[in-house]
């Protein structure tokens, strides 16, 4: 391979010229969903391809001053949010925008700029058992490709049982199991009891010593 490397880069290129190196005419929208007892968190990364950046940039740069202000990014985030649907066991979960970061227009035009949108929905009172979360992304479907995945919950009482999607990954159903919280509390109680017992034994030792 070293020989190849030093061969003066004399490549007998066998394929036709294909200068493009990036996603071209697709708007990649990658969603990651995080589950917790009291909330659903959404991370959505939106990356326009080189050939469609010109269609996406005006949606952000509304005043046409060739920069995307935080207010413009926030306004676009709200527009995207309107196109997202999250339901828990068939009940709508309203999402609140928590953060939007927009890249430079230059970065979007060369296909490397990613708009990072973060949102969360309150789901307090999720009871134990099998739960069903449905997520659907209806933003710019005619030009988009999608990814949608559940992250492993940080809370060990929640376990993702399965994910089913439509072929384009525009929508995903995440089934997950919620264990009763009393189990976790009982575990902590046992640990605390064990720690207290250990301390009591250690404190009692000098009295028991001859």
């Amino acid at each position, binding site marked *: 391979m070293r020989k190849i490397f030093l061969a003066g880069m004399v490549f007998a290129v066998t394929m036709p010229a294909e200068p*493009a190196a990036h996603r071209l005419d697709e708007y990649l929208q990658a969603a990651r969903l995080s589950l917790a007892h009291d909330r659903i968190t959404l991370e959505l990364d939106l990356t326009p391809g080189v050939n469609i950046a010109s269609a996406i940039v005006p949606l952000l740069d509304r005043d046409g001053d060739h920069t995307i202000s935080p207010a413009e990014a926030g306004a676009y985030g709200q527009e995207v949010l309107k196109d997202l649907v999250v339901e828990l066991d068939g009940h709508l979960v309203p999402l609140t925008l928590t953060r939007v970061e927009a890249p430079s227009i230059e970065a979007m035009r*060369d296909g490397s700029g990613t708009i990072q949108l973060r949102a969360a929905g309150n789901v307090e009172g999720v009871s134990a058992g099998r739960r069903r979360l449905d997520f659907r992304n209806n933003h710019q479907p005619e030009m988009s490709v999608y990814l949608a995945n559940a992250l492993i919950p940080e809370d060990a009482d929640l376990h993702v049982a399965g994910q089913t999607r439509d072929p384009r990954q525009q929508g995903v159903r995440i089934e997950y199991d919620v264990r009763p919280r009393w189990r976790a509390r009982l575990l902590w109680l046992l640990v605390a009891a064990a720690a207290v017992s250990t301390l009591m034994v250690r404190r009692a030792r000098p009295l028991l010593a001859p």
Partner: protein
Amino acid sequence: MSSRPSRVLLAVLVAFGTVGVARLQRTAPSTDATARAVAAAEAFLATLDPGQRLKANLELNEKTRTVWSNLPTGTTMQVGATERNGLKLGDMKPEQEKAALALVAATLSRDGFQKAMAIVDADQVLETRSAPSRAPTARIRFGRGEYYVGVLGKPSTTTPWMIQFGGHHLAINVTLAGRQNVLTPTHTGTQPASYSVDGRTIRPLGDENDKAFALVNALTAEQQKEAILGVEVKNLVLGPGTDGKTIAPEGIRASVFTPAQRAMLVDLVREWVDILGDEAAAAKMKEVQANLAETYFAWAGPTTNGKGAYFRIQGPTVLIEYAPQGQGDNSTDHIHTIYRDPTNDYAAKAAAR
């Protein structure tokens, strides 16, 4: 003289200590590899002038270590940086470049170094093809001169430091933490996926592709039903810029594989693990094999080799994704892959100790 509770406590501590030492021995390679890397890093840095050294040798911290990407020079990386860490080959004198590549070679296995350089060569092909039609004002650049070598932290046989070798479709991140050499997270990719040099066909990620197709076709129809997700996966799920995230595993568990299927899976995982030097790779493969029953294999796309298909291997200490980018009619000509360890990216375990 000890009381009964104390003896129990002592027994527990001894047991934990034994497990800990056994675990350390299992995951820790010899310090020889680290010593070789230290010597090569010092030799490389010694060839640089003070200004170059400032660029090539940066502080190692939680921010600097994440500056890597699949994207070419002239773009904004996923973490927001506009330039990679280190010094690029195109800005080095011949002896400096020789020392830089010697550092990379000292860190990687022979096969791993060859794979990395084949990816670099593929990008040179891309540069040759794209340069004639590129606008003079275009910022994006491909080619061998756009690959960076960086040393993060002070080269040491005891304290953590890092070597980065990266450019378009390549981000080798090796964290050396005393006895641990850790390759994760690392990105490989290629465009074109196949090119010829002196009449020989080079496929930088050809073995990854072929072994994966062989494995999916070695599954029974029932197993394929579990493994194949039935969706389009157009890019990496946990690519550059997604450090610290772990997706829920999907696909088929290797616990139901036959011994032959397991061997094929292990052989496929080796394509990433073996990029690192032999000793560290051997330790990592032991860990992967120990967790094989908890490892999932997922597939998306056709099962006929030659067509573009995505696959993912995910276990307790490994995540590998292979994602054709579906560009134009030839969806196999532009590949992205990622290799992570959800428990030990950037040698997190060593840092925790």
